[in-house]
Protein backbone atom coordinates (compact mmCIF):
# COMPACT_ATOMS: atom_id res chain seq x y z
CA UNK A 1 0.00 0.00 0.00
CA UNK A 2 2.55 2.54 1.17
CA UNK A 3 4.91 1.42 -1.56
CA UNK A 4 2.24 2.02 -4.23
CA UNK A 5 1.78 5.54 -2.90
CA UNK A 6 5.54 6.01 -3.10
CA UNK A 7 5.39 4.94 -6.76
CA UNK A 8 2.76 7.58 -7.42
CA UNK A 9 4.80 10.23 -5.63
CA UNK A 10 8.08 9.53 -7.38
CA UNK A 11 6.56 9.24 -10.86
CA UNK A 12 4.46 12.38 -10.40
CA UNK A 13 7.57 14.24 -9.22
CA UNK A 14 9.37 13.12 -12.39
CA UNK A 15 6.52 14.24 -14.61
CA UNK A 16 6.42 17.54 -12.74
CA UNK A 17 10.16 18.01 -13.06
CA UNK A 18 10.23 17.40 -16.80
CA UNK A 19 7.14 19.45 -17.57
CA UNK A 20 8.24 22.37 -15.43
CA UNK A 21 11.78 22.37 -16.85
CA UNK A 22 10.15 23.50 -20.11
CA UNK A 23 8.29 26.44 -18.57
CA UNK A 24 10.09 29.61 -19.74
CA UNK A 25 11.35 32.08 -17.10
CA UNK A 26 8.79 34.49 -18.56
CA UNK A 27 6.03 32.53 -16.85
CA UNK A 28 7.76 31.64 -13.59
CA UNK A 29 5.49 33.83 -11.48
CA UNK A 30 2.28 32.39 -12.99
CA UNK A 31 3.86 28.95 -12.51
CA UNK A 32 4.21 29.62 -8.80
CA UNK A 33 0.67 30.86 -8.45
CA UNK A 34 -0.58 27.91 -10.54
CA UNK A 35 1.18 25.28 -8.45
CA UNK A 36 -0.16 27.09 -5.44
CA UNK A 37 -3.72 26.91 -6.68
CA UNK A 38 -3.22 23.24 -7.49
CA UNK A 39 -1.79 22.53 -4.04
CA UNK A 40 -5.13 23.81 -2.77
CA UNK A 41 -6.04 20.17 -3.43
CA UNK A 42 -5.45 19.82 0.32
CA UNK A 43 -9.10 20.84 0.20
CA UNK A 44 -9.93 17.23 -0.61
CA UNK A 45 -8.50 16.02 2.70
CA UNK A 46 -9.97 18.96 4.58
CA UNK A 47 -13.50 18.33 3.26
CA UNK A 48 -13.56 14.78 4.60
CA UNK A 49 -12.27 16.01 7.95
CA UNK A 50 -14.87 18.78 8.21
CA UNK A 51 -17.78 16.59 7.18
CA UNK A 52 -17.04 13.24 8.79
CA UNK A 53 -18.46 14.11 12.21
CA UNK A 54 -15.52 12.67 14.14
CA UNK A 55 -15.73 15.01 17.13
CA UNK A 56 -15.78 18.76 17.72
CA UNK A 57 -12.02 19.27 17.46
CA UNK A 58 -11.76 17.40 14.15
CA UNK A 59 -14.70 19.34 12.72
CA UNK A 60 -13.28 22.67 13.85
CA UNK A 61 -9.81 21.93 12.46
CA UNK A 62 -11.46 20.66 9.29
CA UNK A 63 -13.49 23.86 8.97
CA UNK A 64 -10.37 26.04 9.25
CA UNK A 65 -8.52 23.76 6.82
CA UNK A 66 -11.39 23.94 4.30
CA UNK A 67 -11.35 27.74 4.58
CA UNK A 68 -7.57 28.00 4.12
CA UNK A 69 -7.50 25.58 1.19
CA UNK A 70 -10.46 27.30 -0.48
CA UNK A 71 -8.66 30.65 -0.23
CA UNK A 72 -5.79 29.09 -2.20
CA UNK A 73 -8.00 27.41 -4.77
CA UNK A 74 -10.23 30.41 -5.48
CA UNK A 75 -7.59 33.09 -5.11
CA UNK A 76 -4.87 31.04 -6.80
CA UNK A 77 -6.78 30.17 -9.96
CA UNK A 78 -8.20 33.68 -10.30
CA UNK A 79 -4.87 35.43 -9.97
CA UNK A 80 -3.16 32.96 -12.32
CA UNK A 81 -5.88 33.64 -14.86
CA UNK A 82 -5.41 37.40 -14.48
CA UNK A 83 -1.68 37.11 -15.03
CA UNK A 84 -1.90 34.73 -17.97
CA UNK A 85 -4.39 37.02 -19.68
CA UNK A 86 -1.64 39.68 -19.72
CA UNK A 87 0.77 37.27 -21.41
CA UNK A 88 -1.71 35.92 -23.90
CA UNK A 89 -1.97 38.40 -26.71
CA UNK A 90 0.33 40.76 -28.49
CA UNK A 91 -0.02 43.44 -31.11
CA UNK A 92 2.53 44.61 -33.66
CA UNK A 93 4.96 47.25 -32.48
CA UNK A 94 5.75 45.73 -29.14
CA UNK A 95 2.38 46.52 -27.60
CA UNK A 96 0.48 43.77 -25.88
CA UNK A 97 -3.24 43.83 -26.46
CA UNK A 98 -5.81 43.80 -23.70
CA UNK A 99 -8.76 42.00 -25.18
CA UNK A 100 -8.35 43.28 -28.74
CA UNK A 101 -7.32 41.22 -31.72
CA UNK A 102 -3.97 39.46 -31.54
CA UNK A 103 -1.46 39.78 -34.32
CA UNK A 104 -0.85 36.44 -36.00
CA UNK A 105 2.41 34.58 -35.48
CA UNK A 106 5.07 37.15 -34.65
CA UNK A 107 8.00 35.03 -33.60
CA UNK A 108 11.13 36.08 -31.83
CA UNK A 109 14.02 36.69 -34.21
Amino acid at each position, binding site marked *: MAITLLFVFVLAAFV*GYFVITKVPPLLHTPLMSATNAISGISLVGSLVLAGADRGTLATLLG*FIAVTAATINVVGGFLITDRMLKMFKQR*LPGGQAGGSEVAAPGQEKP
Partner: protein
Amino acid sequence: MLALLLQLPETAGHAAAPGPGMGLRDVGIQLTYLAAGVLFILGLYSLTKPARAQRGMQLAALGMLLAVIGTLLHQHIVRFEWIIGGLLLGTAIGYPLGMFVPMTAMPQRIAISHMFGALAATLVGVAEYQLHAAGPSHATMAALGFEVMFGALTITGSFMAFGKLQGFITGTPITWRGQNAINLTLFAATFGIFAYLIVSPDHPVLFYAMVVMSLAIGVLMVLPIGGADMPVVVSLLNSYAGLAAAATGFAIGNTVLIVCGALDGASGFLLSVLMSKAMNRSFGNVLFGAFGAAPTGAAAAEIGDRQVRSVTAEDVAVQLAYAREVIVVPGYGMAVAQCQHQVRELASQVEKRGGTVKYAIHPVAGRMPGHMNVLLAEANVAYDRLYDLEEINDQFEQADVVLVIGANDVVNPAAKSDPASPIYGMPILNVDAAQSIVVLKRSMAAGYSGVENELFYHDRCAMLFGDAKSSLQQLITDIKEV
Protein backbone atom coordinates in the same frame (compact mmCIF):
# COMPACT_ATOMS: atom_id res chain seq x y z
CA MET B 1 5.25 7.16 -18.42
CA LEU B 2 2.28 9.47 -18.15
CA ALA B 3 -0.16 6.66 -18.80
CA LEU B 4 1.51 4.48 -16.20
CA LEU B 5 1.38 7.20 -13.61
CA LEU B 6 -2.21 8.01 -14.22
CA GLN B 7 -3.40 4.44 -13.91
CA LEU B 8 -1.96 4.15 -10.47
CA PRO B 9 -4.48 6.22 -8.53
CA GLU B 10 -7.23 3.72 -9.26
CA THR B 11 -5.37 0.80 -7.82
CA ALA B 12 -3.90 2.78 -4.98
CA GLY B 13 -7.16 4.21 -3.78
CA HIS B 14 -8.11 1.31 -1.52
CA ALA B 15 -7.40 3.29 1.58
CA ALA B 16 -10.66 5.13 1.03
CA ALA B 17 -12.58 1.92 0.54
CA PRO B 18 -14.01 0.25 3.62
CA GLY B 19 -13.50 -3.39 2.63
CA PRO B 20 -11.18 -5.32 0.36
CA GLY B 21 -13.33 -4.53 -2.70
CA MET B 22 -14.10 -1.11 -4.08
CA GLY B 23 -17.68 0.10 -4.26
CA LEU B 24 -19.10 1.87 -7.28
CA ARG B 25 -19.04 5.12 -5.35
CA ASP B 26 -15.34 4.77 -4.61
CA VAL B 27 -14.56 4.02 -8.22
CA GLY B 28 -16.45 7.17 -9.16
CA ILE B 29 -14.47 9.24 -6.64
CA GLN B 30 -11.17 7.81 -7.82
CA LEU B 31 -12.09 8.55 -11.43
CA THR B 32 -12.71 12.23 -10.62
CA TYR B 33 -9.29 12.27 -8.93
CA LEU B 34 -7.73 10.66 -11.98
CA ALA B 35 -9.33 13.28 -14.23
CA ALA B 36 -8.14 16.03 -11.88
CA GLY B 37 -4.58 14.69 -11.94
CA VAL B 38 -4.56 14.59 -15.74
CA LEU B 39 -5.98 18.10 -16.03
CA PHE B 40 -3.44 19.49 -13.53
CA ILE B 41 -0.54 18.05 -15.52
CA LEU B 42 -2.03 19.39 -18.75
CA GLY B 43 -2.50 22.76 -17.06
CA LEU B 44 1.14 22.94 -16.00
CA TYR B 45 2.21 21.74 -19.44
CA SER B 46 0.22 24.58 -21.01
CA LEU B 47 2.47 27.01 -19.13
CA THR B 48 5.26 26.13 -21.55
CA LYS B 49 3.48 28.24 -24.21
CA PRO B 50 2.25 31.70 -23.19
CA ALA B 51 -0.45 31.79 -25.85
CA ARG B 52 -2.30 28.74 -24.59
CA ALA B 53 -1.46 28.98 -20.91
CA GLN B 54 -4.68 30.70 -19.87
CA ARG B 55 -6.91 28.03 -21.41
CA GLY B 56 -4.75 25.28 -19.93
CA MET B 57 -5.06 26.64 -16.41
CA GLN B 58 -8.82 27.01 -16.83
CA LEU B 59 -8.87 23.26 -17.52
CA ALA B 60 -6.85 22.73 -14.34
CA ALA B 61 -9.46 24.72 -12.42
CA LEU B 62 -12.11 22.42 -13.89
CA GLY B 63 -10.05 19.50 -12.60
CA MET B 64 -10.14 21.01 -9.13
CA LEU B 65 -13.92 21.35 -9.32
CA LEU B 66 -14.23 17.69 -10.33
CA ALA B 67 -12.04 16.57 -7.44
CA VAL B 68 -14.12 18.58 -4.98
CA ILE B 69 -17.41 17.21 -6.31
CA GLY B 70 -15.98 13.70 -6.21
CA THR B 71 -14.86 14.14 -2.61
CA LEU B 72 -18.28 15.36 -1.54
CA LEU B 73 -19.63 11.93 -2.56
CA HIS B 74 -17.34 10.34 0.03
CA GLN B 75 -19.31 8.08 2.37
CA HIS B 76 -17.57 9.41 5.47
CA ILE B 77 -19.03 12.84 4.85
CA VAL B 78 -22.26 13.03 6.74
CA ARG B 79 -22.63 16.70 7.64
CA PHE B 80 -22.31 19.56 5.26
CA GLU B 81 -22.81 22.71 7.35
CA TRP B 82 -19.12 23.18 8.23
CA ILE B 83 -18.05 22.27 4.73
CA ILE B 84 -20.36 24.86 3.20
CA GLY B 85 -19.32 27.40 5.82
CA GLY B 86 -15.63 26.85 5.06
CA LEU B 87 -16.14 26.97 1.31
CA LEU B 88 -18.11 30.22 1.56
CA LEU B 89 -15.66 31.89 3.96
CA GLY B 90 -12.68 30.74 1.89
CA THR B 91 -14.28 32.08 -1.29
CA ALA B 92 -15.10 35.37 0.40
CA ILE B 93 -11.43 35.81 1.36
CA GLY B 94 -9.93 34.20 -1.75
CA TYR B 95 -11.93 36.16 -4.33
CA PRO B 96 -10.52 39.60 -3.45
CA LEU B 97 -7.04 38.06 -3.05
CA GLY B 98 -7.38 36.81 -6.59
CA MET B 99 -9.15 39.69 -8.27
CA PHE B 100 -8.05 42.90 -6.60
CA VAL B 101 -4.44 42.44 -5.47
CA PRO B 102 -2.31 44.63 -7.79
CA MET B 103 0.48 43.04 -9.80
CA THR B 104 2.98 45.17 -7.89
CA ALA B 105 2.05 43.29 -4.70
CA MET B 106 2.54 39.90 -6.32
CA PRO B 107 5.64 38.72 -4.35
CA GLN B 108 3.93 39.09 -0.99
CA ARG B 109 0.67 37.72 -2.40
CA ILE B 110 2.48 34.55 -3.53
CA ALA B 111 4.32 34.28 -0.21
CA ILE B 112 1.17 34.45 1.89
CA SER B 113 -0.64 31.90 -0.28
CA HIS B 114 1.97 29.28 0.66
CA MET B 115 0.91 29.88 4.25
CA PHE B 116 -2.73 28.99 3.56
CA GLY B 117 -1.82 25.77 1.75
CA ALA B 118 0.53 24.71 4.52
CA LEU B 119 -2.04 25.61 7.19
CA ALA B 120 -4.63 23.30 5.63
CA ALA B 121 -2.14 20.43 5.40
CA THR B 122 -0.90 20.91 8.97
CA LEU B 123 -4.38 21.04 10.48
CA VAL B 124 -5.39 17.85 8.67
CA GLY B 125 -2.21 16.25 10.03
CA VAL B 126 -2.88 17.35 13.61
CA ALA B 127 -6.49 16.13 13.45
CA GLU B 128 -5.43 12.77 11.98
CA TYR B 129 -2.95 12.29 14.82
CA GLN B 130 -5.57 13.25 17.38
CA LEU B 131 -8.10 10.82 15.90
CA HIS B 132 -5.84 7.79 16.21
CA ALA B 133 -6.75 6.98 19.81
CA ALA B 134 -3.84 4.63 20.51
CA GLY B 135 -1.43 6.44 18.23
CA PRO B 136 -1.11 5.88 14.49
CA SER B 137 0.87 3.08 12.85
CA HIS B 138 4.58 3.60 12.26
CA ALA B 139 4.17 4.29 8.55
CA THR B 140 1.28 6.71 9.09
CA MET B 141 3.27 8.43 11.81
CA ALA B 142 6.17 8.94 9.40
CA ALA B 143 3.82 10.56 6.89
CA LEU B 144 2.10 12.69 9.56
CA GLY B 145 5.49 13.78 10.88
CA PHE B 146 6.66 15.02 7.49
CA GLU B 147 3.27 16.64 6.97
CA VAL B 148 3.23 18.70 10.16
CA MET B 149 6.97 19.51 10.05
CA PHE B 150 6.97 20.81 6.49
CA GLY B 151 3.54 22.33 7.04
CA ALA B 152 4.37 24.14 10.27
CA LEU B 153 7.68 25.59 9.11
CA THR B 154 6.03 26.72 5.87
CA ILE B 155 3.25 28.49 7.81
CA THR B 156 5.60 30.67 9.83
CA GLY B 157 8.31 30.87 7.14
CA SER B 158 5.80 32.14 4.58
CA PHE B 159 4.37 34.60 7.03
CA MET B 160 7.85 35.97 7.72
CA ALA B 161 8.57 36.18 3.98
CA PHE B 162 5.24 37.97 3.55
CA GLY B 163 6.19 40.40 6.31
CA LYS B 164 9.56 41.14 4.75
CA LEU B 165 8.09 41.67 1.29
CA GLN B 166 5.20 43.75 2.61
CA GLY B 167 7.66 45.78 4.66
CA PHE B 168 6.44 45.32 8.23
CA ILE B 169 9.47 43.16 8.99
CA THR B 170 12.82 44.63 8.01
CA GLY B 171 14.18 43.39 4.70
CA THR B 172 17.77 43.44 5.90
CA PRO B 173 19.10 40.16 7.28
CA ILE B 174 18.63 39.78 11.05
CA THR B 175 21.60 37.87 12.39
CA TRP B 176 23.22 37.19 15.72
CA ARG B 177 26.16 35.24 17.04
CA GLY B 178 25.77 31.50 16.98
CA GLN B 179 22.63 31.76 14.89
CA ASN B 180 23.48 28.86 12.62
CA ALA B 181 24.50 26.68 15.55
CA ILE B 182 21.20 27.39 17.32
CA ASN B 183 19.18 26.72 14.16
CA LEU B 184 20.98 23.48 13.45
CA THR B 185 20.55 22.29 17.03
CA LEU B 186 16.85 23.03 16.92
CA PHE B 187 16.58 21.29 13.58
CA ALA B 188 18.43 18.22 14.86
CA ALA B 189 16.27 18.12 18.02
CA THR B 190 13.08 18.31 15.97
CA PHE B 191 14.25 15.53 13.72
CA GLY B 192 15.25 13.47 16.77
CA ILE B 193 11.74 13.78 18.20
CA PHE B 194 10.33 12.82 14.81
CA ALA B 195 12.50 9.70 14.67
CA TYR B 196 11.45 8.75 18.20
CA LEU B 197 7.77 9.24 17.32
CA ILE B 198 8.05 6.90 14.35
CA VAL B 199 9.30 4.17 16.66
CA SER B 200 6.82 5.01 19.39
CA PRO B 201 3.93 7.06 17.97
CA ASP B 202 1.73 7.38 21.05
CA HIS B 203 3.32 10.48 22.63
CA PRO B 204 1.01 13.45 22.05
CA VAL B 205 3.20 15.83 24.06
CA LEU B 206 6.21 15.07 21.87
CA PHE B 207 4.05 15.38 18.75
CA TYR B 208 2.89 18.86 19.70
CA ALA B 209 6.42 19.82 20.75
CA MET B 210 7.53 18.85 17.26
CA VAL B 211 4.83 21.07 15.73
CA VAL B 212 5.83 24.04 17.89
CA MET B 213 9.52 23.55 17.15
CA SER B 214 8.81 23.40 13.42
CA LEU B 215 6.89 26.66 13.71
CA ALA B 216 9.97 28.18 15.38
CA ILE B 217 12.25 26.82 12.65
CA GLY B 218 10.14 28.61 10.02
CA VAL B 219 10.67 31.95 11.78
CA LEU B 220 14.38 31.42 12.43
CA MET B 221 14.98 30.22 8.89
CA VAL B 222 13.66 33.38 7.22
CA LEU B 223 14.94 36.01 9.72
CA PRO B 224 18.54 36.04 8.41
CA ILE B 225 17.48 36.18 4.77
CA GLY B 226 17.73 39.50 2.97
CA GLY B 227 15.46 40.99 0.33
CA ALA B 228 17.45 39.99 -2.72
CA ASP B 229 17.55 36.34 -1.64
CA MET B 230 13.76 36.24 -1.45
CA PRO B 231 13.32 34.54 -4.86
CA VAL B 232 15.10 31.45 -3.52
CA VAL B 233 13.17 31.42 -0.26
CA VAL B 234 9.78 31.96 -1.86
CA SER B 235 10.44 29.08 -4.28
CA LEU B 236 11.70 26.89 -1.48
CA LEU B 237 8.54 27.54 0.56
CA ASN B 238 6.52 26.73 -2.57
CA SER B 239 8.28 23.38 -2.62
CA TYR B 240 7.70 22.74 1.10
CA ALA B 241 4.01 23.55 0.80
CA GLY B 242 3.85 20.92 -1.94
CA LEU B 243 5.72 18.35 0.11
CA ALA B 244 3.36 18.94 3.04
CA ALA B 245 0.40 18.26 0.73
CA ALA B 246 2.07 15.11 -0.61
CA ALA B 247 2.71 13.90 2.95
CA THR B 248 -0.99 14.49 3.70
CA GLY B 249 -1.75 12.20 0.79
CA PHE B 250 0.47 9.49 2.30
CA ALA B 251 -1.12 9.92 5.73
CA ILE B 252 -4.72 9.59 4.54
CA GLY B 253 -4.02 7.34 1.53
CA ASN B 254 -5.18 9.85 -1.06
CA THR B 255 -3.45 9.67 -4.42
CA VAL B 256 -4.56 12.96 -5.94
CA LEU B 257 -3.00 14.78 -2.99
CA ILE B 258 0.25 12.91 -3.59
CA VAL B 259 0.24 13.74 -7.31
CA CYS B 260 -0.42 17.44 -6.72
CA GLY B 261 2.02 17.63 -3.84
CA ALA B 262 4.72 16.03 -5.97
CA LEU B 263 4.05 18.44 -8.87
CA ASP B 264 4.15 21.41 -6.52
CA GLY B 265 7.22 20.14 -4.70
CA ALA B 266 9.09 19.49 -7.95
CA SER B 267 8.18 22.91 -9.30
CA GLY B 268 9.30 24.78 -6.20
CA PHE B 269 12.48 22.74 -5.99
CA LEU B 270 13.34 23.41 -9.62
CA LEU B 271 12.72 27.13 -9.23
CA SER B 272 14.90 27.34 -6.12
CA VAL B 273 17.71 25.55 -7.93
CA LEU B 274 17.40 27.92 -10.90
CA MET B 275 17.40 30.97 -8.61
CA SER B 276 20.42 29.75 -6.64
CA LYS B 277 22.29 29.07 -9.87
CA ALA B 278 21.47 32.54 -11.14
CA MET B 279 23.21 33.90 -8.05
CA ASN B 280 26.03 31.33 -8.21
CA ARG B 281 25.24 30.31 -4.65
CA SER B 282 24.31 27.02 -3.08
CA PHE B 283 21.08 26.49 -1.16
CA GLY B 284 23.09 26.23 2.01
CA ASN B 285 24.79 29.52 1.33
CA VAL B 286 21.46 31.31 0.82
CA LEU B 287 19.93 29.76 3.94
CA PHE B 288 22.90 30.00 6.28
CA GLY B 289 25.10 32.75 4.92
CA ALA B 290 23.46 36.16 5.06
CA PHE B 291 25.81 38.23 2.95
CA GLY B 292 24.88 41.79 3.59
CA ALA B 293 27.89 42.09 5.87
CA ALA B 294 30.43 41.29 3.14
CA PRO B 295 33.67 43.26 3.44
CA THR B 296 33.78 46.04 0.87
CA GLY B 297 36.95 47.82 1.95
CA ALA B 298 39.21 46.48 -0.79
CA ALA B 299 36.82 47.21 -3.61
CA ALA B 300 36.13 50.72 -2.37
CA ALA B 301 39.84 51.52 -2.03
CA GLU B 302 40.53 50.26 -5.53
CA ILE B 303 37.99 52.62 -7.00
CA GLY B 304 39.59 55.43 -5.04
CA ASP B 305 38.84 58.92 -6.28
CA ARG B 306 37.47 57.96 -9.67
CA GLN B 307 34.47 60.02 -10.64
CA VAL B 308 31.19 58.91 -12.08
CA ARG B 309 29.78 60.82 -15.04
CA SER B 310 26.40 62.35 -14.40
CA VAL B 311 24.11 63.32 -17.30
CA THR B 312 20.89 65.25 -17.70
CA ALA B 313 17.62 63.80 -18.92
CA GLU B 314 17.88 65.99 -22.01
CA ASP B 315 21.15 64.36 -23.11
CA VAL B 316 19.76 60.89 -22.58
CA ALA B 317 16.60 61.78 -24.49
CA VAL B 318 18.67 62.83 -27.49
CA GLN B 319 20.65 59.58 -27.37
CA LEU B 320 17.45 57.54 -27.17
CA ALA B 321 15.76 59.48 -29.96
CA TYR B 322 18.49 58.55 -32.45
CA ALA B 323 19.20 55.05 -31.15
CA ARG B 324 18.34 52.10 -33.39
CA GLU B 325 18.73 49.41 -30.76
CA VAL B 326 17.84 50.04 -27.10
CA ILE B 327 17.97 47.44 -24.33
CA VAL B 328 16.24 48.09 -21.01
CA VAL B 329 17.58 46.29 -17.92
CA PRO B 330 14.98 46.47 -15.15
CA GLY B 331 15.70 45.58 -11.53
CA TYR B 332 14.04 45.70 -8.15
CA GLY B 333 14.27 49.50 -8.27
CA MET B 334 11.70 49.50 -11.07
CA ALA B 335 9.33 47.54 -8.84
CA VAL B 336 9.91 49.93 -5.93
CA ALA B 337 9.37 53.04 -8.05
CA GLN B 338 6.44 51.28 -9.80
CA CYS B 339 7.54 52.91 -13.02
CA GLN B 340 6.87 50.02 -15.44
CA HIS B 341 4.21 52.07 -17.24
CA GLN B 342 6.65 54.96 -17.78
CA VAL B 343 9.23 52.47 -19.06
CA ARG B 344 6.75 51.22 -21.62
CA GLU B 345 5.73 54.73 -22.63
CA LEU B 346 9.34 55.73 -23.17
CA ALA B 347 9.84 52.56 -25.22
CA SER B 348 6.91 53.44 -27.48
CA GLN B 349 8.44 56.88 -28.05
CA VAL B 350 11.72 55.23 -29.11
CA GLU B 351 9.82 52.84 -31.37
CA LYS B 352 7.86 55.70 -32.90
CA ARG B 353 11.19 57.07 -34.06
CA GLY B 354 12.17 53.79 -35.66
CA GLY B 355 14.26 52.23 -32.89
CA THR B 356 13.68 48.82 -31.36
CA VAL B 357 13.45 48.22 -27.63
CA LYS B 358 14.23 44.92 -25.93
CA TYR B 359 14.12 44.05 -22.26
CA ALA B 360 16.86 42.01 -20.61
CA ILE B 361 15.53 40.08 -17.63
CA HIS B 362 17.97 38.57 -15.15
CA PRO B 363 16.52 35.48 -13.40
CA VAL B 364 16.91 37.00 -9.93
CA ALA B 365 15.92 40.59 -10.77
CA GLY B 366 13.24 41.49 -8.24
CA ARG B 367 11.88 39.54 -5.33
CA MET B 368 10.44 36.39 -6.89
CA PRO B 369 11.00 34.29 -10.00
CA GLY B 370 9.54 36.13 -12.99
CA HIS B 371 8.87 39.34 -11.04
CA MET B 372 10.02 41.72 -13.82
CA ASN B 373 8.07 39.83 -16.49
CA VAL B 374 4.82 40.22 -14.59
CA LEU B 375 5.35 43.94 -14.00
CA LEU B 376 6.20 44.63 -17.64
CA ALA B 377 3.33 42.49 -18.88
CA GLU B 378 1.06 44.53 -16.65
CA ALA B 379 2.31 47.65 -18.42
CA ASN B 380 1.33 46.02 -21.75
CA VAL B 381 4.85 45.21 -22.92
CA ALA B 382 4.57 42.31 -25.37
CA TYR B 383 6.17 39.18 -23.99
CA ASP B 384 8.26 38.60 -27.12
CA ARG B 385 10.24 41.71 -26.18
CA LEU B 386 11.30 40.18 -22.88
CA TYR B 387 14.58 38.26 -23.15
CA ASP B 388 16.32 35.90 -20.72
CA LEU B 389 19.93 36.26 -19.71
CA GLU B 390 21.19 33.68 -22.24
CA GLU B 391 19.07 35.01 -25.08
CA ILE B 392 20.14 38.62 -24.76
CA ASN B 393 23.72 38.49 -23.52
CA ASP B 394 25.38 38.47 -26.95
CA GLN B 395 23.09 41.22 -28.21
CA PHE B 396 24.46 43.96 -25.97
CA GLU B 397 27.28 44.55 -28.48
CA GLN B 398 24.78 45.76 -31.05
CA ALA B 399 22.92 47.96 -28.59
CA ASP B 400 23.29 51.72 -29.03
CA VAL B 401 21.93 52.52 -25.58
CA VAL B 402 21.36 50.37 -22.53
CA LEU B 403 19.03 51.77 -19.88
CA VAL B 404 19.64 50.24 -16.46
CA ILE B 405 16.59 50.96 -14.31
CA GLY B 406 16.96 50.09 -10.64
CA ALA B 407 19.27 47.13 -11.22
CA ASN B 408 22.68 46.89 -9.61
CA ASP B 409 24.25 43.56 -8.68
CA VAL B 410 22.95 41.81 -11.82
CA VAL B 411 25.01 44.18 -14.01
CA ASN B 412 28.13 44.37 -11.81
CA PRO B 413 31.23 43.38 -13.83
CA ALA B 414 32.98 42.43 -10.57
CA ALA B 415 31.01 39.19 -10.79
CA LYS B 416 33.24 38.31 -13.73
CA SER B 417 36.49 40.06 -12.96
CA ASP B 418 37.02 40.22 -9.21
CA PRO B 419 37.48 36.86 -7.44
CA ALA B 420 37.42 38.66 -4.08
CA SER B 421 33.91 40.00 -4.67
CA PRO B 422 31.10 38.27 -2.78
CA ILE B 423 29.11 38.07 -6.00
CA TYR B 424 32.03 36.62 -8.01
CA GLY B 425 30.85 33.90 -10.39
CA MET B 426 27.25 35.07 -10.56
CA PRO B 427 26.09 35.21 -14.19
CA ILE B 428 25.45 38.85 -15.10
CA LEU B 429 24.04 40.82 -18.00
CA ASN B 430 26.95 42.03 -20.17
CA VAL B 431 25.76 45.61 -20.37
CA ASP B 432 29.34 46.95 -20.59
CA ALA B 433 29.49 45.64 -24.19
CA ALA B 434 27.02 48.31 -25.32
CA GLN B 435 27.89 51.60 -27.06
CA SER B 436 26.44 53.65 -24.25
CA ILE B 437 25.09 52.79 -20.83
CA VAL B 438 22.75 54.99 -18.83
CA VAL B 439 22.02 54.04 -15.24
CA LEU B 440 18.91 55.45 -13.58
CA LYS B 441 19.64 55.51 -9.89
CA ARG B 442 18.55 57.35 -6.80
CA SER B 443 22.04 57.76 -5.33
CA MET B 444 25.47 56.14 -5.33
CA ALA B 445 24.49 53.63 -2.64
CA ALA B 446 25.84 50.10 -3.16
CA GLY B 447 23.56 47.27 -4.21
CA TYR B 448 22.03 44.70 -1.95
CA SER B 449 25.26 42.73 -1.72
CA GLY B 450 26.99 45.85 -0.39
CA VAL B 451 29.46 45.74 -3.28
CA GLU B 452 30.62 48.80 -5.21
CA ASN B 453 29.62 48.61 -8.84
CA GLU B 454 32.51 49.28 -11.21
CA LEU B 455 30.11 49.62 -14.08
CA PHE B 456 29.24 53.11 -12.86
CA TYR B 457 32.87 54.19 -13.44
CA HIS B 458 33.00 52.72 -16.93
CA ASP B 459 33.99 55.17 -19.75
CA ARG B 460 30.76 54.60 -21.62
CA CYS B 461 28.54 54.69 -18.56
CA ALA B 462 26.61 57.74 -17.41
CA MET B 463 24.42 58.20 -14.37
CA LEU B 464 21.00 59.81 -14.42
CA PHE B 465 20.35 60.49 -10.75
CA GLY B 466 16.90 60.83 -9.25
CA ASP B 467 13.73 58.90 -8.60
CA ALA B 468 13.27 56.47 -11.51
CA LYS B 469 9.65 57.44 -12.09
CA SER B 470 10.27 61.19 -12.38
CA SER B 471 13.47 60.63 -14.39
CA LEU B 472 11.50 58.55 -16.87
CA GLN B 473 8.72 61.12 -17.04
CA GLN B 474 11.32 63.77 -17.79
CA LEU B 475 12.81 61.54 -20.50
CA ILE B 476 9.39 61.06 -22.08
CA THR B 477 8.75 64.82 -22.14
CA ASP B 478 12.24 65.53 -23.52
CA ILE B 479 12.24 62.86 -26.20
CA LYS B 480 9.00 64.25 -27.61
CA GLU B 481 10.76 67.58 -28.12
CA VAL B 482 13.86 66.21 -29.84
